[in-house]
Every structure is written in structure tokens, then in C-alpha cells.
């Protein structure tokens, strides 16, 4: 393409908190409509906001993780516009002095290189309620009104739809790691507006358009790819881009105009007189610092370098914080990293996918898995029996040693007992024994199979194999 493109994102995340951001109603908007409301979040006359410090803490966590400068004095402002789902007809937000400014996020691109994306600011605000229209009426549910929303605004440092998609994915992983949001895009806990402009190389930013309410990272990519092409066609024809807000239509895979700049609101921001400026003190900042966990990318690198995991394993395990935390808990219980990684990305994941459970909710406690590994590594059960025991741990929610004991799954390693079975098998398959003597070593596998069949797989395979070979060779 002869043009250079610029993409910036505005991402809203719904913070997980006990209560709403300015009142003590539960932050739980899926409940029966208009049950989690009070004079404050319903905008009753005389009600005042009082700031929820848990929301502030999470806002600061995100600001810090995005390497922002933390404003010494964060100021809330009123953003004025009328909308039926907004009880006060102004939104308490931040404008000139948000919690975090001038940060960056290191984005990993498809070729493995890293691109630094500047973060303009991180600000805290309140969400609106929900308006539901049908043919005859509009109904309003204010359960969501006043729930905490964190907005992250990037500079237009992204190149195109694909980079924006990667940003959304990696950003989502980060905020889920920080445990500030569940990041569910379909349900709206992570919402994305994308703006883009194009220009001839070296000419700087062009006239931008914004696409609102993209609810998957794939749509972010598709909408931006469409917009950049559309801009190029307009410019190619010698026309100019109209600065406007557009909507993505998934059905037609196109964007359409929603409102032009002329129709845009003058929000008449001014400092919220009901909330004094917030000054994060040293104790709070120390708590934020303490909460700065290892971020996903760092963790992945450490798993590859120090634990010698394969890149695929490291990516898989660090994708979700709960998986990686579980993995480390198993290691802390004394298990081997490679063995844990292999089982985790193999059979454990298979069972969890099939049963639709997350690892921390499953019966797979780190202690049980370590115990299972011990049983295998000490040859008390075979690797294959181990897989059955794993399924039994899930099904029965019991410790592996108890399962092995009760079901009699322990390998027979007693020489006398093994010898007895080996002799029976050899006696039953004289022809095969003769073939092996004649040099067909492959047939040993057949005898092993018969042996396992006769014992339900419980014979220590190494011991049995040695014994078969010895017996056949000895009687030569």
C-alpha cells in the first residue's frame, strides 16, 4: 500500500470489585433488573458519590503494569451528556488528571519481535445502565449503573488491524493476569473502540475515523482492515476522509457511519465537586508495587530459559494465569517441570477440555498430581495406568494412592509372582517362544502384550521383559 496507517485503541474493562465505584451496591449486574440500586447509583436528589478504594487500587495496578506515570493528584470530572441509561445525565470520569499517564506496553508481533506501544492514559469512570428496546417500549435496568469501568487509551502507534488484534489479545491476557477483570469480550467486560487514519509516508497522521463497540479481537482486526482499505480508496479518488464515528456490521463485514464530528457532544468537562482530588499515598503505592506480579511474557521467557520447557508448552501454560499458577504450585510440591508440563499440556488438559472445567476448580490439586508422579516414577504404577488413575482422580475426587490401593492397580514387581505369570505365558505360546529363539525378537512384544492382558497391565514391564528374555535365552 502506498499509504502509512495509524491505529489507536480505547479499551474499556469492567473491574471486578465487591461494590460499585461510588456506592455500596453489589457490583453484580446480571441479577434481577433494578435490584442492585440505591439513591446514589439511581441519581436521586441529594445523593453523593463516595469513592470505592478497591476500584482505585485496581486502576493503579493497571496503570503501574502499563508503566504509566501515576498522577500525584488524580481528579474526577463530570462528563455531561443526556442519555436515559445514565441516572445523573453526567458520567463521573477523569479527564485532565487521570490515575495513569504516559505509559507503554511491549507488544509481541507475529515474527517474535517486540514493538513498544505508548499508552496515553488510564482512567477510572462509572458505567451506565442498560436500555432494552422492543417494539412498544424501552425498559431500563440500572444494575450496571455506577459499576467501575477502567478506560485505557493508546497512542496511534499500532500499524494495522492485525497489530490491534494482537494488542487486544495480549492486553486482555495482562489484565486477566492482574485479576482486575474477567476480560470477557462477548459479555462486554472488555470493550474496544478503534480509531485509524492513513497518510502518505512521512506526512504524519491523517484524518481519523473511529469504530465503536468491537466485541472480539477478530472484529477489531476485520473492522480496521476494512477501514484502512476504505480510507485508501477515498484518498485514491482524490476525496477527503470525513472525521466521524462508525459502527462495525458483522453481517456485511463493513463499517457504516454513526455520527459525524459536527454531531459530536461537547461534554463540558469540569472537576467533580463531590469528590476531592485523590492523592495515592506511599502505603497505597507500596501495596500496588507488592501486587505487581510477573507478567505473562516474562513468565513465558522464564519457563523457556530456566525450566527448559518447549516454546509451545510455555505459551500454553502461561496463556492463563490460573494455569501457570497451578503449574508452579505442582513444582513447589516437588514435581519435575518437564513431567508436569508434559502432563499438563497433554492428558490433564484433555480431561479438563472434555469436562469443561478450569484447573483450579478441578479435583487436580497440585498435591495429588505430585503424588501421581511419585507413583509412576517409583514404578509402583506404569505410565499407562497413571493415565487411568488421572481420570479416576477427576471422576472420584480422591487421592491417587487411595485409588491405586483400592483398585489394586499397583504393579507386580515381586520377582516370584512375575516369574509365575511369565512361565504360564511362555507355556501357552510355545510356537512364539521358538520363533524368538530363531531370532524373531519382535515377537517379544507379543508375549509382553499377552502378559499384560493376563495381569490387567499391572506387571512391572521392565522386570517382565527381562524375565522373558532371560528365560528364553537360558533354555536355549
Amino acid at each position, binding site marked *: 500500500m502506498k499509504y502509512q496507517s495509524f491505529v489507536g485503541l480505547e479499551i474499556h474493562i469492567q473491574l471486578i470489585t465487591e461494590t460499585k465505584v461510588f456506592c455500596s451496591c453489589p457490583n453484580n449486574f446480571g441479577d434481577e433488573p433494578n435490584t442492585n440500586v440505591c439513591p446514589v447509583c439511581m441519581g436521586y436528589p441529594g445523593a453523593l458519590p463516595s469513592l470505592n478504594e478497591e476500584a482505585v487500587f485496581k486502576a493503579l495496578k493497571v496503570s503501574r503494569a502499563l508503566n504509566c506515570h501515576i498522577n500525584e493528584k488524580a481528579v474526577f470530572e463530570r462528563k*455531561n451528556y443526556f442519555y436515559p441509561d445514565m441516572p*445523573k445525565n453526567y458520567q463521573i470520569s477523569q479527564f485532565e488528571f487521570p490515575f495513569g499517564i504516559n505509559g507503554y506496553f511491549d507488544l509481541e508481533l507475529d515474527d517474535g519481535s517486540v514493538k513498544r506501544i505508548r499508552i496515553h492514559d488510564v482512567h477510572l469512570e462509572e458505567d451506565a445502565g442498560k436500555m432494552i428496546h422492543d417494539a412498544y417500549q424501552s425498559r431500563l435496568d440500572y444494575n450496571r449503573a455506577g459499576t467501575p469501568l477502567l478506560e485505557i487509551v493508546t497512542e496511534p502507534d499500532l500499524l494495522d488491524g492485525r497489530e490491534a488484534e494482537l494488542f487486544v489479545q495480549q492486553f486482555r491476557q495482562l489484565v486477566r493476569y492482574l485479576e482486575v477483570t474477567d476480560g470477557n469480550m462477548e459479555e462486554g467486560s472488555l470493550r474496544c473502540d478503534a480509531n485509524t487514519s492513513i497518510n502518505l509516508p512521512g506526512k504524519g497522521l491523517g484524518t481519523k475515523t473511529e469504530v465503536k463497540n468491537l466485541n472480539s479481537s477478530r472484529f477489531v482486526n476485520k473492522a480496521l482492515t476494512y477501514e484502512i482499505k476504505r480510507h485508501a480508496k477515498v484518498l485514491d479518488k482524490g476525496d477527503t476522509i470525513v472525521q466521524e464515528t462508525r459502527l462495525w456490521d458483522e453481517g456485511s463485514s463493513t463499517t457504516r457511519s454513526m455520527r459525524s464530528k459536527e454531531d459530536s457532544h461537547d461534554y463540558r*468537562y469540569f472537576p467533580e465537586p463531590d469528590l476531592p482530588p485523590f492523592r495515592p499515598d506511599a502505603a497505597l503505592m507500596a501495596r500496588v508495587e507488592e501486587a505487581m506480579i510477573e507478567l505473562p511474557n516474562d513468565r513465558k521467557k522464564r519457563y523457556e530459559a530456566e525450566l527448559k520447557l518447549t516454546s509451545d508448552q510455555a505459551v500454553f501454560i502461561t496463556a492463563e494465569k490460573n494455569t501457570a499458577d497451578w503449574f508452579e504450585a505442582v513444582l513447589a510440591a516437588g514435581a519435575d517441570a518437564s513431567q508436569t508440563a508434559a502432563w499438563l499440556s497433554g492428558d490433564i488438559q484433555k480431561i479438563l477440555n472434555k469436562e469443561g472445567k478450569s484447573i483450579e476448580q478441578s479435583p487436580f490439586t497440585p498435591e495429588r498430581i505430585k503424588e501421581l508422579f511419585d507413583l509412576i516414577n517409583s514404578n509402583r504404577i506404569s505410565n499407562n495406568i497413571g493415565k487411568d488413575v488421572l481420570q479416576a482422580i477427576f471422576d472420584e475426587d480422591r487421592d491417587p494412592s487411595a485409588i491405586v490401593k483400592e483398585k489394586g492397580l499397583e504393579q507386580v514387581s515381586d520377582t516370584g509372582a512375575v516369574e509365575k505369570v511369565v512361565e504360564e505365558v511362555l507355556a501357552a505360546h510355545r510356537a512364539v517362544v521358538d520363533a524368538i529363539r530363531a531370532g524373531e525378537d519382535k515377537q517379544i512384544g507379543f508375549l509382553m502384550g499377552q502378559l499384560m492382558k493376563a495381569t490387567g497391565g499391572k506387571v512391572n514391564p521392565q522386570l517382565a521383559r527381562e524375565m522373558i528374555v532371560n528365560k528364553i535365552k537360558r533354555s536355549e
Partner: protein
Amino acid sequence: MSDIKRWAKALTESADSYKKYVGSWEEKIGSFLQFDPEAAQADSSGQGLLAVIPFGVKDNIAVKGFNMTCGSKILENFDCPYTATAVENLQKAGAVPVGKMNMDEFGMGSSTDNSALAETHNPWDTSRVAGGSSGGSAAAVAAGQVPFALGSDTGGSVRQPASFCGVYGLKPTYGTVSRYGLTAYASSLETIGVCAETAGLTRDVFKAMRGKDIMDNTTVEYKPSGKDDVETVAVLKAGEGDLNVDVLRSYKTSIARLKDLGYKTVEVELPTLKYVVPAYYVIATAEASANLARFNGIRYGLAAQGAETPSALMEETRHSGFGDEVKLRILLGTYVLRSGFQDQFYHRAQKIRTAILNDFNRIFESADALMMPVFPTAAFRHGSSDLTQLQQKAADLYTCSANLAGLPALAVPSTIEEGLPVGVQFMAPAFEEERLFRIAEKLEAVFPAQKPEGYSQEWKA
């Protein structure tokens, strides 16, 4: 039995004669929008400093059991679901809210004539206004209907009607009394205040209702300096161009009385005073334009009938629900907040705000308190014959300075001029309300507040 303890009879043994007395004044002055001593009696502790004392509450302050109309059609039938913290604190101290007081719609006015619901007259002369916006509160106290009533003071709305009716009127330090439950007009300027029949009762009510409140993040710890005695009183220079003849005469009397009582007085000027009214109206209307946006017919209050869309519902409700003065101030506030105009209006007003505070601070370096006029006139006649709406606004200069600076101010009844009471106000540094009460009590001991004709305590007998 102290006089205040006698008031407890109003809700006990003398309940019937009390109601009759209140009713007889109501016919003349109309201070109440709602009077019902039983409505919230169960929510009072019944014991404490103010045990079973009746009080009135300006109708922009929330009290469960009553409506809260704010003097507006848009909230005419609004049944209030909760109680303001300041009222709750008084209920804990035993006091009983008996009714809601008339006011200028949403506190916007100086006469109570801007109430969309009822007319209130001055107990001293019913052809005259009680002042505003807390006119109902001041009138009721002056007439002896209640010993005290809560008002709200955004630019003088407690002190000016107190002065017009001859009662004490306190605007406390900003942040000392919770605003939770006070319908917001101009949040950064206003406080809940008290109209009361004596200086001592004003103090008791203030003490009972103040305190840091988790429901109002702008409340602060009360931290007075401990220096309560007043020796030097600064006196603002005021002449014929500033005050009506009657008020000027009264002001001079007040100065003479201060000297007689042994106070050292020094005359001072406030260079910023001429800028405070424009600054006040910029900030007040800006905040009001946002504060009043919530009244849209959807969740409570008036809802326009037959609207086809949500936006039509909001528009028509606001069109028919708000009075002219309210619409004017919302428009002004919207105008001054437009992007590109904030430096010219809103930010400049904030600078004036800082400047007037600096003026006061400079004065309080060498004086313990400051005496100023309350209003350039005594109670004026209903309508615009004495003072137009614009003149009424310009006359806010003495009172609104305290709101811009966040400082405490107390209006004290001084003299009777041509049959009308005239008050004077005292100001002090933040948290130094006690100094104001001490000056007021010293004056009161020699020159107690006069009562209008028809005022009686006989029902208590």
C-alpha cells in the same frame, strides 16, 4: 425549665395547642410546604441534647416520611426514600423534624417567590418577602413555629432570610456538615445551615449535626484552633453607595455596639469583593447545569405524558417541570462550560475564588473575626417593585464571598428599622464557628432578638 426544654411540649403535652399555633401563622405566612409532626417522630431517639424538640427542614433536604419537592413542580410529589446525614444526626440528638419548609425552586433566588408550589410571607410584614432561598425556614423560626429550621446556604440562602426575618442564620465551614441528602444546586459552594431563635441553640444544632460522613467525601475532620475568644473584630467599610439608608444606619449601630461591648475594631476593605458576584454565578450555574440534569422524568418525579421517545420524555419533562429562573441558570451554566470558553468564565471564576480567600486570610492575620453587612436592603416587597431579579443577584456580594471562600458566617439580628429587622453577619477562619457564637451571645445578652407581632409562647404554658 430552660426555654429550649419547654419546646419539647410541642410534641407531647401541648401538641394540640402547638398545632393550632402553627396553623394560625400558616394562614398568614405559609412557611411550610408540609407540616406533620408525626411523620418522622419514630425516627428520633427521643433523648439527648435536643430531646423531642421540633424543627423544620428546608424542602431540598431529604427526610424519610416526607416529600422532597425543592419547591419545584418537577419533584412536586416526590416521596423521599431516605434521610440526610445532618437530619439523622439531629434525630440521634433527639430532635424531631415536623415539616418541610418552602424555598425558592432548587435554592435559586433571594425571596422564596421562585417557589413553584407556594407563597411565603415575612412574619413582620406579609406584603414583604421572607428572603431566600431558605425563606420558609427563617419565617417559621421568626414566627415561633419552630425553634430552629435547617436551610441550605449556597450564596447567602440562610443568612439573608435570617436577616430579613430577625433570626440567627449560620452558614458553617464547608465540609463540616455532610451534604448527603441535600439536593445539590452548587456543590462546591453550599452547605446545610441553621436558622434558630437564639445564638446558643444555633451552636447546639451545629454541634449535633456536624461530623465527617462516609457518604460525603468532601466532609473533613473538625479541627478548630482552640482560640475561641474574640478581641479584635475587623469591620468591612461600607457607605451610602453600598447599603440602603436603613441598613446603613443599622450597620453603624452594630459597629457602635461592638465597641461598647469592648471589642477592638479595625476598618478593612475587601479588594476582590467587586468580582465575587460574577464569579459566584459562573461557578454556581456551571455546577447547577450538571446537578439538575438528573431530573428527566424517568426514575422519579414529574414525567411528561404522551412522549413518544426517551429524549422527548426528558425534554418535555424539563420544559414543563422547571421554572424560568431555574431554566435561566441551567442555560447560563451550560454556556460557561462550553469547550473553548472555560478559560474566559469557569477558570477565571476559580481564580477570583482564590483571590477572595486570600483577602479574608489577610484580614484574619490581624483580626479574630470580620463583621460585614448581610444584604444591602431589608426585606423587600413581593414582585420586582423594590428589587429586580438582577438587582437581587448583585446584592449577593456580602453573603456569597463566604461561600466562595468556604468560611463560616453567622447572621445575627441587630436592629429594627421602619418595622423590619436588619441583621449583620460575622465571619471567621475555617472551623472557628465558636468565635461567631461568642460574639453573637455577647450581643444577644444586651440586645436580644426582637419578635414580630403575633409571636407567642403561650401554647407552651
